[in-house]
Structures are given as structure tokens and as C-alpha cells.
């Protein structure tokens, strides 16, 4: 039933009729039509998990808000991407991300090239709406080139998906749960001791913040190559 033929579907986004292919998601079709939906965990070229909840939209007939990145389009569906309710939700969720760990832009190497930061400008999030939790974690700086600082992680899991799906190394995973969830290498070994990590650096390039960053690089020199993944996928003809 899932593997049906690709067909054209017509549906509505914000009251406007739009067509897309049946294997496309709401997010893909919206972006093709220049309808902006903010995303954080989404990364073109790897699978979608719908975990950050920034891209939530209203779909008529559904009680819950649905992430646009995982929602396949359906004939006749009615999607709203910009209601006051959605905007309030997105702001609160972004504020929750800021409050959770330690996101202090002035002391961060990703300042100016951080998706969490740019999202707060885009929404815009004028002030924090929830009390700060500032959960603290140990930093793993054992790797010769890279650092894993969970204090700046937003748990988007892009690094995991890139490592699994593009590099094929399966070096990164999650440990702990709830607020204590963090990125680990192999069986929670220091990064330097990871036997499966190939040190390719893709995880660092796609990290939306500086939870993963390159050593000895200044704020001016930070190079996030997020589009590299899509290029790799295209070149490999996946």
C-alpha cells in the first residue's frame, strides 16, 4: 500500500491550491512554492524524524499538530502553516530549546553560523518564555580534530543520520533519556577511542549549532558545509 505509483495530488496550503507528487512531503512541496516553514532537525539528503517540532503545521481533521517534514501529501488535504496557534507553538518550542542547555551566543564558536540562532531571528523569538534549565554535561575533546559539547546540542540527531545513512559508519548513537539524552560514540567511549568513527567530519559539518565543532578554528573560520550531504547523495545516484 505504501509502494504505490507516484501520482499528482492537489491540496491546499494556507487556502491556496497546490500540486505535488504523492511521494513528496508537505515541507518539500511548500518549499518548492516558496512557502517558508522553519526547520531544525530536517536535513536534505537524509531521513526525516520530525523530532524538533519546529515545522509543525495544522492539517484539517487532525487534533495534533503534524511535522511538515514527515507528512506525506494527500489529495484534498488542507494545510495551515502560519496560524497564530502554530506561531505561538513554534516560539515556545524554540524557547524551550534555548532554555534546556547552555546557548550563549557571545561565547560560542558558531556565533553567526548557527541555525538555532538564525531561527530565533526568523521567528522572531524576542525573549525567552520559559525558565532556564541549563542542564550541564561533560565535554568530549578527546578527538584530535573535533569536539563534542553536549551543552550546545539540541538533539536534532542529524549527526547520527549522516553517519548512518551517508558515511555508513554507525559510529554515533544516543544514551540516556529525557533531559539527560546525549550523543555518544560507539558504546559511550571517548570520541578518540571510537573504532567505527572514520573521522570524516560530516557530523561536524551538518551540526546546526556548535555541539560538534572543529578544533583550533575561530568564529570567523567556522565552516559548516550542510549542503555537502545533498551533493553526495546526488553524486552517488541514490
Amino acid at each position, binding site marked *: *500500500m*505504501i509502494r504505490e505509483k507516484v501520482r499528482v495530488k492537489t491540496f491546499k496550503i494556507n487556502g491556496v491550491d497546490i500540486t505535488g507528487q504523492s511521494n513528496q512531503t508537505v515541507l518539500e512541496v511548500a518549499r518548492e512554492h516558496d512557502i517558508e516553514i522553519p526547520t531544525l532537525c530536517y536535513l536534505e539528503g537524509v531521513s526525516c*524524524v*520530525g*523530532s*524538533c*517540532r519546529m515545522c*509543525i503545521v495544522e492539517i484539517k481533521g487532525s*487534533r*495534533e*499538530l*503534524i*511535522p511538515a517534514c*514527515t507528512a*506525506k501529501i494527500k489529495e484534498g488535504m488542507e494545510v495551515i502553516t502560519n496560524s497564530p*496557534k502554530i506561531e*505561538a*507553538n513554534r516560539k*515556545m*518550542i524554540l524557547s*524551550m*530549546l534555548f*532554555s*534546556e542547555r547552555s546557548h550563549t551566543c557571545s561565547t560560542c564558536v558558531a556565533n553567526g553560523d548557527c541555525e538555532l540562532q538564525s531561527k530565533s531571528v526568523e521567528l522572531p523569538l524576542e525573549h525567552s*518564555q*520559559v*525558565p532556564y*534549565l541549563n542542564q550541564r554535561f561533560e565535554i568530549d575533546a578527546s578527538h584530535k580534530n573535533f569536539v563534542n559539547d553536549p551543552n550546545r546540542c*539540541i*538533539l536534532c540527531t542529524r549527526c547520527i543520520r549522516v553517519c548512518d545513512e551517508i558515511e555508513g559508519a554507525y559510529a554515533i*548513537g*544516543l544514551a*540516556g*533519556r*529525557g*533531559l*539527560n*539524552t546525549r550523543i555518544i560514540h560507539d558504546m559511550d567511549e571517548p570520541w578518540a577511542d571510537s573504532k567505527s568513527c572514520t573521522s570524516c567530519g560530516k557530523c561536524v559539518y551538518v551540526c546546526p549549532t556548535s555541539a560538534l565543532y572543529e578544533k583550533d578554528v575561530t568564529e570567523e573560520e567556522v565552516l559548516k558545509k550542510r549542503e555537502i550531504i545533498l551533493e553526495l547523495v546526488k553524486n552517488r545516484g541514490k
Partner: protein
Amino acid sequence: MITSIDDLQALAEKKRAECDENSSELRVCAGTSCLSLGSSELKKSLQDEIQSRGLNDSCNIKSVGCNGLCANGTLVSYCTKDKSKSTFYERVTSGDASGLVDSIQNGTPLEDRMCDISQPFFTYQKKIVLENIGIIDPDDIEDYIAHGGYLSFFRALDEMSPKDVIEEVKISGLRGRGGGGYPTGIKWESVSKVLSEQKYIICNGDEGDPGAFMDRAVMESDPHRILEGMAIAGYACGANKGYIYVRAEYPLAVDKLNRAIKQATKLGILGENIAHSNFSFNIEVRLGAGAFVCGEATALIASIEGNRGNPRQKPPHLSDYGLWGEPTVLNNVETFANIAPIIKNGGAWYKSIGTESSSGTKVFALTGHIQNTGLVEVPMGTTLRELIFDIGGGVPDGKKFKAIQSGGPSGGCIPESLLDLHVDYESLKNAGSIMGSGGLIVIDDSSNMVEIARFFMDFCRSESCGKCTPCRVGTTELTLLLDKFINKKATKSDFELLKEMCEIVKSASLCGLGQTAPNPVISTIKYFEDEYLAGISDD
């Protein structure tokens, strides 16, 4: 080996005859609750006593599952030789063994341990799911067969097409007993219609709500009933493999289920080409490792697959894309336990019990501030007042009833003014709670409702898997906010933030855990707002 319905009935006859001519029966409760009260020592003392008096041949002692009235354990029932009369005893200890055997010998009941079975706790119940419980020995497949076990499954194989089975379940109006209330027949039908070589049946035995122990009792006391329900589901949907996902905190249930599977496989009731048909079905038990979220369908499947037990966004639904990407039926223990009686007595019979929208019975675990802590099965539509005051015996220690929490951390608190509510899926939902799996926690007037809400919120906080932001951060923020109310340090804007955040966690979370986590807070604000306002300081 049982290769036909005749074999099955012959075995049942043989076992029944054995029991009849053999002896009277002493049934000792060996559920988790009575075991913790020393029921295995009691059984040993009774055995010694019977042995020393040379009564081995005239009185048989067996361990049975939970009798329900856990508050008054250990429960023992004595059944006369012709099985026409039984006497029920409560609060029995090893010390009572000789007195009890005396009473058997001289035919006069042991007065001071007698349990009044004319009390509403017993008379208000209607047992379908629990009908064998307390009667059969869960370790003995023959005992189950003697009580009509596996007959529905063999009848379905012999006389019904898969479509007939689904039709019967649809007619019954049975809805998912895990709490969601999705019509079981429709769920099965959608899986049966998917074209796929491999399909799976999963039984969700990851009962994790605080105060809920319905499924545990069924798994411990009547494991074959679950296997039979799953096998019928497998036949109906075209699946040849079943998994029972049980939390590791239920070691007794795991033990009983594994033993049951082994026995059923040995007799050829499970396995390849069952009863010379084309249908094969095997069942395996998988253990949960302690995460509450693994009761959520997609997380449970991730866990069976050997992955981290994180939920995923639906759709695709399990009927399309379930275990290892194949079409999957996932039902709760109690749902499967209802299947054999439905096939045996017909869907129309089941439909005639309960209410229009919710047919059949529901098993509830009564806990908290209530006299008769235990397990009860009542028809849908029974009022909360009957459940709490008649069956449950009311609130003990002269305290006053304040609220009842249904549905665990996903449910809500219902106040006294709604006690005449007829319990079914819709009525509980309209009252701001949910049916849930069936845990009912009674709260007396010495409790603070904000603290109750905080307890459940903290539970969700510690059980959140951490995948999506609103649940991971929201449940923590909400717990801290509730602390401010409890410490009387909240502000008016905290109250607004509390309400706003509840709505956002509810609508934006990824899975059922987050989507329902704010329910205890929302319902207590609705019915007990005063207690929140009392937590707001003026300065």
C-alpha cells in the same frame, strides 16, 4: 499431539473426568500480590497437612491466578468433589493450614476466615476476561483445555474463514483495551487486506501506568487465553508470527507465558500446519527493559527490533509499516483475552453487554484510598459511584472521597460531582480523562490535587525518551512550575504559563506520552482550580 478438534475435545473430556472422580480442590491464589503475602509457604503447609493425614487422593491442591480481592489476601477457595459448592476464604496464612484441613475433613467451613461472596465486590462483577482466573492452574494447559480452552481457535480453523472471524470481531464492537479504544475488528481488517508475505501479531504486555495491574493478572493467571487470542488474530489477518512484549518487571508473567508457549507448541496447538491446516503460528516473548514509553506502539516495535525504544511519527501506521516494516496488528493483553469468548459465543452476544458505543466488559485495578484494593471486571456503563462505593467498599479511615484518577499519567482526575458517570470511552473523555488501560486510583480529601498532578508530571518527565522538544523540555518545565505552586511561590503569570505550556505540550508532542502528559494538570485545573490559586503568592 492435537491434530483435530476431536483430539482437543477428547483431551478436555479426559481431564474433566480425571478432576471429577479424583477429588475436591483447594485453590490457593498465587498471583504476585498473594505470593508476596506468603502464598507459596501456605500451599506447602497445606500440602504437608494433607499428606500427613493421608488425604492425598481426596483433596487436590492447586495454585491459581489472582482472585481479585488483593486487599484481603491470601485468598483460598475450597471446591467440593462434585464442584457444585465452593467456599471462599480470605486472609489465610500458613498458621491456618491445619484448621483449614480440619474443616475439610469434618465438612464445616472455617468461619473466621470465610469471605462473604454476596458482597457487591463479587456480585457486581461480570467476568469474561477473568472467567478462568482463580479457577484454572496457569501452569497446566490441560486444565485450560478442560475449561473450553483453544476450542474457539480450532473452531475458527475448522469452520470459519479469516473473513468470518474478522466479521465476528467487528460485530462484537470490541475496542482496544490498551486505552485508545480503536475498534479491533477494523484494525484486523486493514491488516488482513494488505498484500504481504509476512505479517506480525504483537501483544502489548508492557503495562506501565502507576496503579495498573490488570494485564499482569491475566498474563500470570490465564496465559493460554492470550495465546489463543493471538493465534485467532494470526489466522484472521494472515500472520504466522506473534510476539508478546512484556516488561521485565513482571517476572512471574514472563515465566507463565514462556511455559504456556512451550506447552502449546508441544501439543501442536502452536507451530507449523496446525491441525493439518495451512495455518502456522509461532509466538515468542520479548522483554522490555524498563522504559514506560515502550508501551507506545512504535517505540515497542523499535524495542522488539533491538533498537533504542524511541517512538516515531505516524503515519505510516502499523497496518502498513509495522515490525520490520511489515503489516502488524498490535493489541493489548486484555483485548486478546476477549477474543476466544467472542468467537465462542458470537459477536452479537458480546455486543449485548455494555453500552452502545463501548461493548463488553472492562477490567479495572482499584487502588489508592479504597477499601477493597484489587481487580474487578464490570460491564461497560457501570457508574464510577458503583465502582468506588459498592464494589470498592468506599474510602477507608473515615476520610472523604475527593477524586478518582483514571488512565494513569495520560488520564485525568474526575471529581465527586461526576461520580454518576457511566464509564465508557466517550464519557471519560468528555470528563477530561481517558479510559486508559484500566487503572483507577482513588484519592481522599487529605490529598492535594496539585501534588497529585505533579506526581504524574514528574513520572512523564522521567519517562520521556527525549526525542521531541515539547515533551523532553516541556515535562521538566511543567514539573518545576508545579513545584512553585506546591511551595506557594507561584505568580499569576506562572499560572498562565502553566496553562499555555500544557496546551503546547499536548498539541505539539510526537507521541502519546507527550500528547497526554498534561492531562492530569489540565483536569485538576478544571475541577480543582482553587488549589492552584492557593499556590499563588500575592507578593
